């Protein structure tokens, strides 16, 4: 155990700062930027539906959700019941499905379905973008800088931080204030988000252009269905949600409400 009250001193070569601390930070920042641009470059926009029926299959669910969420602020009882019945029957019959004949069959294997394959490739690419540079840098740091103590924090910390700040240094008695090179890497990995935010604008700054042109019709772009998910199951679920809905309407009594809230006294 470190002696309480006594300051531990370790004689560090000042070159440690220039040759370890500095390079690690720089490399981390540069890889972060590189990764951002690589992601932007490899990012494929979500695939828009290719037929009208496919688009309907995607958006019918949103329509149900919209009805469920917003009916209370628009519809009176009669039109609500009418719409509810229509949506529930449609969901139950599979009227909104892309091909109603395939209903009830198990969903296509995502491995053989080209659309599912594409989505999975997208995910894989994203993950790779994170994994590969991290593995490389970590092994680089392990090979060159393992075991160095490079930094002393100016404030005391409890013993719990030891595993976080001193990975790679197996000294039990070392005070928690000292930071090892491997830990410095981890701190950078977790803590550079705001630096990237500063350098790259906001996180999605480079994506903005693509989004803007997509905005012509944002409604058509949304896809609530994940690849490999069976829309029929989601529909049945939504139908159940709609069925249990109680109707109420915030338009009831709105006249008194505005008179009370906005009208000057004396009217």
């Amino acid at each position, binding site marked *: 155990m470190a002696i309480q009250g006594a300051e531990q001193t370790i004689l560090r070569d000042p070159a440690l700062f220039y040759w370890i601390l500095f390079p690690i930070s720089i490399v981390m920042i540069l890889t972060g930027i590189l990764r951002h641009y690589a992601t932007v470059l490899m990012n494929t926009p979500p695939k*828009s*539906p*290719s*037929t*009208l*029926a*496919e*688009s*309907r299959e995607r*958006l*019918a669910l*949103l*329509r149900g959700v*919209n*009805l469920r*969420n*917003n*009916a209370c*602020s*628009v*519809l*009176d009882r009669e*039109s609500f019941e009418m719409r509810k019945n229509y949506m529930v029957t449609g969901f139950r019959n599979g009227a909104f499905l892309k091909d109603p004949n395939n209903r009830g069959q198990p969903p296509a294997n995502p491995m053989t379905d080209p659309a599912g394959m594409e989505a999975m490739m997208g995910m894989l690419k994203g993950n790779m973008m994170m994994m590969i540079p991290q593995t490389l840098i970590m092994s680089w740091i392990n090979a060159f800088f393992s075991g160095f103590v490079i930094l002393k924090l100016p404030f005391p910390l409890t013993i719990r931080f030891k595993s976080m700040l001193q990975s790679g240094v197996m000294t039990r008695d070392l005070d928690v204030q000292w930071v090892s090179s491997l830990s410095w890497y981890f701190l950078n990995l977790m803590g550079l988000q705001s630096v990237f935010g500063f350098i790259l*604008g906001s996180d999605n*700054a*480079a994506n*903005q*252009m693509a989004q*803007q*042109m997509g905005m*012509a*019709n944002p*409604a*058509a772009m*949304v896809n609530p269905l994940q690849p490999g998910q069976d829309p029929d199951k989601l529909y049945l679920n939504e139908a159940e949600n709609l069925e249990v809905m109680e109707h109420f309407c*915030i*338009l*009831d009594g*709105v*006249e*008194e*409400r*505005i*008179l009370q*809230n*906005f*009208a*000057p006294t004396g*009217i």
Partner: protein
Amino acid sequence: MAGPVADIREISGSDLISALHLAQQAPAILGQESGSGFTSNSSETADYYARLEQLLLACLRTGDDQSAHTCLNRLSLRFGPSNERIMGLRGLYEEATAKDQSALEKCLQEYDNTLSQNPVNVPILKRRVALLRSLNRPSDAISGLIQLLDAIPTDAEAWCELADLYQSQGLGPQAIFSLEEALLIAPNSWNIHSRLGELLYICASDGDASRLLGRSVQHFSRSIELCDDYLRGFYGLTLASTRMLDNDYAGVSGQLPKKTLERLKAFALVKLGEIVESPSIDDQHWASSRSELIAAKELLNRQ
């Protein structure tokens, strides 16, 4: 740079005067931006292209086809001619510069061709409906729009257009249904609320007038609740409550008591008076709704 940006923000409304102002600045904007457009950072260029699009629309409205063509070329240079939105804008340009009926028919043919390649090209689908409407074929436009909405039922803009088309054909209940759908997508838009109120008021001449008028009053009230100085909302509230009082619908089966209606009417009139008299009335901001103001003044004089 700051000047044109500020101006464009202001003309979001659809009045001709500010569109004209903007279109007159076209040479300045187009000339000045040609050098610096690509070097500035990405958010600025995103802004720049949004402005180009607005400029294109303003130029087309005011007959400056030359500048419109330049805008269109710049946009398609950046986003490629196969971008759906660019295709829509190009279609708009072709329609606007079409000389005669046959040229418009050719545009329609073009749209059908495009759609046979990609049936979910939303901007083109919408242009097709608009073109059918301007060719005076409303029933075709309606069926086209229904087809579009069947595939994309979450598009509030299209529902509003459908309501407008239905109303122009005198199909009130269908128009009301369409506007309700639009409201389900955007439940807090006060302008659609008051539009629905207007429709209900218009349809109330036949059938169960008292119920429709009651709903009309509710929707006008809701639009006022969402936006407290909304001129159209107050105007409609005045008309609807007056008509309910005149026809003695007050107190009929679940309707508002007479006293509340009278208070509503008085409140709406007071507010209308305040808005019409308010010192900010001559602002640029009101330029786009001058006709509404005149109607409100006229209503106040009549009372």
